[in-house]
């Protein structure tokens, strides 16, 4: 659309325009690039990616609370169906509290909280946040109903249905958040997308188990202890595998103190729960608290490791260069 003065001194219509100027075409004879002069590989060491604008309290908190809520609802349903009312009651209340908290965190982090409902304009499978919103939409009222009926004793049938419904939706709530953070360009998140849901599932289970131990009498907390142990095991396995598979982008994960602390707390909590939780309420409560803290630390750790990986251009650039080299080599082999 830009105009050119076409009529020129020599009247040739096919004259080159300035778009075809080639600066540096005259001058000395050509020299080839000096070898080994590759640049640092970044622009003044600045990140390639823009930093995720999320606050850790809100979003890491959301990851934790969402997991706690989801797994708690499932635990509640299981407890209710297997006749552990105290555990069920505790888990339902916890689920409601956690989902409430997570919703608050989520909305709080929106730049325009008043526009939360815009999430309901569309349903986008390509957007874990959209999917998550619909999961929350399905899950939230059931969890609320479950807790409300539990606490008030009204509408027991409805309560049971809601409990089961929330219990079935709970795991989705607990794991979609992994897809949420992995579906970004943030290296330490994205590259872990295979293990992250398991890590989150494990961590959610551990936290729900922990809460169960904390809130339910020892007698009914058996499932909580087992869930905590299994969850912790899953979390550990996923973490180990993730670090091994990811390559250099796992560095920020490996370096994360929070992750180390989270793991230690979870393992301590799970083992303590197994060893003493059956006997001592105090021990059970301590184990539960450790598990909750461990899960929270893990989520905050993942969050911060991701931010750190995005802030360092190496984690964006180098794996991509390696990928290019590999595909080039493959192409050359062919």
């Amino acid at each position, binding site marked *: 659309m*830009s*105009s*050119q*003065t*076409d*009529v*020129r*001194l*020599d009247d040739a219509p096919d*004259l*080159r*325009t*300035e*778009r*075809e*100027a*080639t*600066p*540096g*075409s*005259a*001058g*000395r004879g050509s020299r080839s690039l000096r070898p080994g002069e590759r640049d640092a590989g970044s622009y003044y060491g600045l990140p390639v990616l823009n930093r995720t604008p999320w606050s850790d309290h809100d979003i890491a908190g959301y990851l934790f609370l969402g997991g706690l809520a989801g797994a708690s609802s499932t635990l509640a349903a299981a407890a209710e169906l297997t006749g552990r009312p105290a555990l069920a009651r505790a888990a339902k209340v916890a689920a409601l509290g956690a989902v409430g908290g997570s919703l608050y965190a989520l909305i709080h982090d929106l730049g325009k909280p008043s526009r939360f409902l815009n999430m*309901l*304009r*569309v*349903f*986008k*499978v*390509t957007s874990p946040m959209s999917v998550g919103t619909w999961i929350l939409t399905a899950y939230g009222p059931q969890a609320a109903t479950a807790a409300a009926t539990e606490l008030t004793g009204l509408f027991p049938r409805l309560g049971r249905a809601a409990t089961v419904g929330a219990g079935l939706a709970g795991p989705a709530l607990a794991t979609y958040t992994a897809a949420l953070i992995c579906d970004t360009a943030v290296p330490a998140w994205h590259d872990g997308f295979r293990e992250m849901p398991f890590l989150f599932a494990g961590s959610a289970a551990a936290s729900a188990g922990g809460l169960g131990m904390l809130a339910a009498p020892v007698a009914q907390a058996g499932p909580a202890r087992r869930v905590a142990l299994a969850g912790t095991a899953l979390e550990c396995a996923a973490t180990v595998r993730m670090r091994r598979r990811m390559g250099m982008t796992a560095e920020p994960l490996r370096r994360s103190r929070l992750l180390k602390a989270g793991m230690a707390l979870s393992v301590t909590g799970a083992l303590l729960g197994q060893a003493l939780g059956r006997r001592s309420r105090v021990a059970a409560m301590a184990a539960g608290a450790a598990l909750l803290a461990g899960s929270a630390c893990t989520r905050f750790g993942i969050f911060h490791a991701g931010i750190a990986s995005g802030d360092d251009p190496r984690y964006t650039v180098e794996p991509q260069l390696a990928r290019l080299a590999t595909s080039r080599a493959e192409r050359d082999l062919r």
Partner: protein
Amino acid sequence: MEFSWPLLRQLTGKDRLGRAAAAKSPRTGSRPARTAAADRVVKSVCPYCAVGCAQNVYVRDEKVVQIEGDPDSPISRGRLCPKGASSLQLTTGSGRLRKVLYRPPHAADWQELDLDAAMEMVADRIIETRRATWEWENAGRRVARTMGVASLGGATLDNEENYLIKKLFTALGVVQIENQARVCHSSTVVGLGTSFGRGGATTFLQDLQHSDCVLIQGSNFAEAHPVGFQWVMEAKARGAVVIHVDPRFTRTSALADLHVPIRVGSDVAFLGAIVNHVLENELFFRDYVLHYTNASTILREDYRDAEDLDGLFSGFDPETRDYDDDTWQYEGMRTVAASGERDEHYDRPAGTMPPGRAEVQGGTGVPLHGEPVRDETLRHPRCVLQVLRRHFARYTPEMVQRVCGVPPELFAQVCRHLTENSGPDRTAEFVYAVGWTQHSDGAQFIRTASILQLLLGNIGRPGGGIQALRGHASIQGSSDIPTLFNLLPGYIPMPHAHEHERMRDFLRADSPCRGFWANMPAYLVSLLKAWWGPSATRDNDFHFDYLPRLTGSHSTYDTVLAQLDGTCKGYLLLGENPAVGSANARMQRLGMAELDWLVVRDLNLIESATWWKDGPEIETGELTTSEIGTEVFFFPAAAHTEKSGSFTNTNRWLQWHHRAVEPEGDARSDLWFMYHLGRIIRRKLAGSGDPMDRPLLDLTWDYPVEGESAEPVAEAVLAEINGWDAEGRPLDAYSQLKDDGSTVCGCWIYCGVYAGGVNRAARRKPAAEQDWVAAEWAWAWPANRRVLYNRASAAPDGRPWSERKRLVWWDESAGRWTGHDVPDFEEDKPPSYRPEPGAQGPAALSGIDPFIMQSDGKGWLFAPSGVVDGPLPSHFEPQDSPVANPLYGHQRNPARKLYRHEDNRYQPSGEEPGASVYPYVVTTYRLTEHFTAGGMSRHTPYLAELQPEMFCEVSPELAAERGLVHGEWATVITARSAIEARVLVTDRIAPLHLNGRVIHQIGLPFHFGPNGLARGDAANELVSISLDPNSHIQEVKALSADIRPGRRPRGPALPELVLSYRRRAGVTEHTGTEV
């Protein structure tokens, strides 16, 4: 079916994933682009630089809502650089002031003032000061003037505004009228004018595309004239070689083929060596040189060259530092001085030209008398070519290495490209700007390039010529319609004080002259008629005695000294910011602090308006607000979108911008200010019987006004500038002007812009509908010619030198000159024409004399007159330089202008003791992102954020030597002051190797100052006032300094630091002032 819930649209429509149409909100796309929704589009011109890019101003509900490029412009093709692109913010930004501000004497702060009251007060101040300082005589000669009032500024204003400033102030007897042209390109007028006859660029931007080699030197083209640079890229696309000779690797260098780092101030040595190379290897364009230049003209026997006298030419008077140019004349021929110079010749010893006068001749060409003696074989030892050869013989590649720091191989490449791309079939173009003009021998830089281009046969030809890139939007206009002390409109000189002088005497020496200046009586009488109308008659000498008289130099720098010594009491700044932009900024402020009153008209609160409150001297304690008695008025100016008028761009094109909206609040155009100021003063003085008021009361001053604010009609002023005949019909061309008082014309070179009553400056026939010359876009002086001296694009016989380079040629069958451009030649004068002996005026020039403003019709390789510091350029070191001059015993230009003053100390140089205290070379320059002294960019957020802080550029080597840390602070110190800047360490400033010695250069952008959003110390605090003697331009491009890490001291410690350096260097009032 359309659902309002997108989810339903998603589920029912094609966009199942909800990523396109389904997700569209009703608001999206519902608001049309404001370019499409505008009520009207007003044609305008960018108010920043002299490229003169066309703008479309979009108006809705009487507000400007968008400004962007006009694609129809043949110059800019719709593009704008960041400054032009930020015009909307400049003109509509919230930062712009809309209220008159007033600071009573000694007050601590501004107060608001009613506009009308302020106008009355300013009128009173002018009347009082004028009365108190009126001089009828000076040293026994009639001067009829006041030295108590001065004005500065004009390059940002319209031609019409400049015209009213000059007209009113001249009628008031004010002579100290100056503008940016002084500090910017005044040496261009001398350099190009003496060489070719006119002081403007010889070509136009679009013609660059036809060049085969573009040599950019002394200009940072891509940064300072970005939109013009597209034409370099056009040339490049078509195979041209682009060379950038610059001390720094800039954004221009980045796009060039060759970057040649050069030490600032050494260009005469560099170009002189190319001249030498061309002469020694017989690479010049022989036919061109022989016929179109004065190469064959023989010089007088008693001429002595600088080579004979160690840097001095014959005729030097060490007492006055002046040359008597008698011995520089052609053999057997008496040179009568030019229109300007002649003026003082009959009561002063010949050749003692007061400073500033040479610029007059520069603008007009120097008439000669008699017949020059020529040797067509070019072998006569005293013919110009041989003199030239001897003069430049020592300018060798080795000397280039020693003086400029340019290695011989690189130098050889430049020579090769330049000479290979010159000749009948190829042309090379030079592009320069203030990297050449702002030196204590700036005119000679330009002279050297002119000599070279004449030798290579590149003047007047397509893709050739010398492109002088001018600065402000209308700085060319403010030179043509000069708010300059030494000129009247159209480069007619201001008269000097002589006894009993009548106009006849002033003009007398002109009458026998040849070339187009023969008609000066008609130009001058028509001007006087324009100013004093019916009251100007033959009997009263057309009121020639109403013109105040000069007694030497009254340039802006002289005015500063006059302020300091109390002579000048009132000052009007009409769009200029000397507290940042002028050399020795501190002295500018100290001068203003001595004033009785100061009027500042500007868009923003610039430093020149607020120094009494928050200037650097308040911080150091050198000035105290309550002790400053200066009364300050600030008037908000209207922006270009708020007034109509014409700008003259760098290539002499007058382009009209139309008013888009009314200015808000108290903002008014300068046209309004000048007109109403004049009206009020005339009202107040009406009935005065005092003869000093006659010029004012007889002045024609009744322009029609329009609108609520009574804005004068700018087109009416343009009509007066163009002129009319006895019947009041607009004139078509300056050839119609008469010396009998029957024609009126405010500026003869602009005559024709309003031909037929049509505003030709407002013509906007789209580029796409015209050829590349675009003759129907705007109007160029003279006579709408775009390439000057284009007769030279044809061989003596009138045929083009080559098919490839045809521009203007003789059409034998039609018996007239024809071609792409308007011929810069009498249309029907055949190539075979030879004047009768004794012919006068234009008829005295032959059919092979392309330089029609020159009295011999030739391009001047050797300037027998007109350049006060020598007929040929010689290399001298800048006033302050760490390098000794290896060529001559005189370190500095012997004829330079200096001001000995406590606040203007010079530094030891070269091998003088103490020179090592200031060991580094400093140069100052521009950035794409800012504009000049910053008034139009530092207050504009979109520009300010791009370069937010003052910085200095240094090489890694210098940084290591002085421990400067990238990103941290450094302090730069000269004998005048010290400033701080952030450090930018970069390979772009290479240390230079001169004869084994390493010279480091420091780069300082000069845009910054304490006000606005982007801030920092002003580079001009460091600079001394040392001037080119021809043009009075200051040397801001080359000085020496020390640099050290860390911030500068605050408070009284700052002057202390400067003094301690001076003591160490042994600086006294005599330092650097030798001949």
